[in-house]
């Protein structure tokens, strides 16, 4: 059997080609695969499409905004594109206003469901979210049992970069508290899923099968976060 454990983040990100679609989970600063994003930044792939809750923050930490600022990303799917305060201007906002990056703004729940649809072989689905708003313009609508819904399509990805709390050698993953967020569904949706792991990767059999959040079938590569890695 092919060993899922990679010795470095760089090795795990080496084959990401220009033009790839990548998913990057995280919510409010937790559950972000910062080590893998740093490696993808070093690797330098360009014309990437990113799928992430937001488009980067203004803090010094590595996030999807690091790749955006480096000009590696041509398009983002996100639920948040603006910094919290109008006085703040992220690299994304600057580039967006200069037409240097494309973005599709997606309601958070719709984004999660579109990722889940990709993960589970669903061709499309109807949701009530965004009906009547400018986001629904041009989309197929349908009335079901007296309620209007809008048709939404899956978001597929080539790579999902995820941040796990615990993992075993078969790639079974566990997450901690609110750090779970988009991690499980993104892990399930991508062609190649790479997990950076906080606690020591344990031999298969040591994690309670009743407490697995992402079964190993979805996970292709594991990298242990070293002591000098990015921890917060």
């Amino acid at each position, binding site marked *: 059997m092919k060993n899922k454990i990679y010795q470095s983040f760089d090795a795990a990100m080496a084959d990401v080609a220009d033009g790839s679609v990548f998913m990057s989970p995280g*919510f409010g600063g937790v559950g972000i695969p910062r080590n893998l994003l740093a490696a993808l930044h070093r690797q330098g792939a360009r014309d990437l499409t990113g799928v992430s809750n937001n488009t980067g923050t203004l803090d010094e930490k590595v996030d999807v905004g690091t790749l955006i600022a480096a000009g590696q990303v041509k398009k983002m799917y996100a639920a948040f*594109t603006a910094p*919290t305060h109008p006085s703040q201007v992220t690299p994304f906002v600057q580039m967006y206003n200069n037409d240097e990056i494309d973005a599709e703004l997606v*309601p*958070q729940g719709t984004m*999660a469901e579109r990722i889940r649809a990709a993960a589970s072989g669903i061709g499309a689905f109807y*949701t009530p979210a965004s009906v009547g*708003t400018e986001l629904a313009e041009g989309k197929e609508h349908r009335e079901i049992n007296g309620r209007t819904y809008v048709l939404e399509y899956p978001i597929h990805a080539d790579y999902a970069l995820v941040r796990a709390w615990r993992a075993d050698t078969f790639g079974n993953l566990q997450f901690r508290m609110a750090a*779970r*967020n988009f991690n499980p569904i993104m892990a399930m949706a991508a062609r190649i899923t790479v997990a950076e792991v906080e606690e020591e990767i344990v031999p298969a059999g040591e994690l309670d099968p009743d407490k697995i959040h992402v079964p190993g079938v979805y996970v292709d590569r594991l990298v242990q976060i070293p002591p000098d890695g990015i921890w917060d």
Partner: protein
Amino acid sequence: MVAEKERLEREVVAMRVAKELPDGGYVNLGIGIPTLVSNFIADESVVFYHSESGVLNCGPLAEEDEQDIDLINAGGQFLQPVDGMAFFNTVDAFAMIRGGHVDVTVLGAHQVSARGDLANWMLPERGVGNIGGAMDLAAGARQVIVAMEHTDRQNRPKIVEDCTYPITGKGCVSLIVTDLAVLQPTPEGLVLKEVAPGWSAAEVQELTDARLIIAPDLKEYEL
């Protein structure tokens, strides 16, 4: 001048909203005044707070020296661990919302229309916006309450006949609580139900773009 008359404090607005939350209800609070609502739940009531960050039964915020890096609410604030919490992923967080399992959401707004259209995700002059979970909440929560200041920083009315900002949801708002009044959007128009102490219906109308229908039993703000 009406514009300079004293208005209610944000905490009082939150206190008034708290009265609307059902005992045992599942409630999602937005950012701003809505966040304050949890401070004013009656002692004998239990309210379960839902957060899009994947946490149910959110408790008080954590003290600075007791923060757990992985335990946050939807605003990214650190929470205290409390008994009976549950954690889940983003799909589940929104299944709870869209599936009608969240009883009430309290949101802030840029504008609300007389028929309950909500605009709270984008100011067109910024060019970029933040939807977050707002469109899912507007479409899915069983009840949407807006808690906000009655006018914006330039003292322009935020309660309008029709929203001029991009909307988040159509006809979704069932109650508006502001620092001047409590109002109910209906298919017939906006009903003024309560006014802040010292304010008359005519004065509230002066700061409201939408035409008000005065409730026959108009009351002073009830806490």
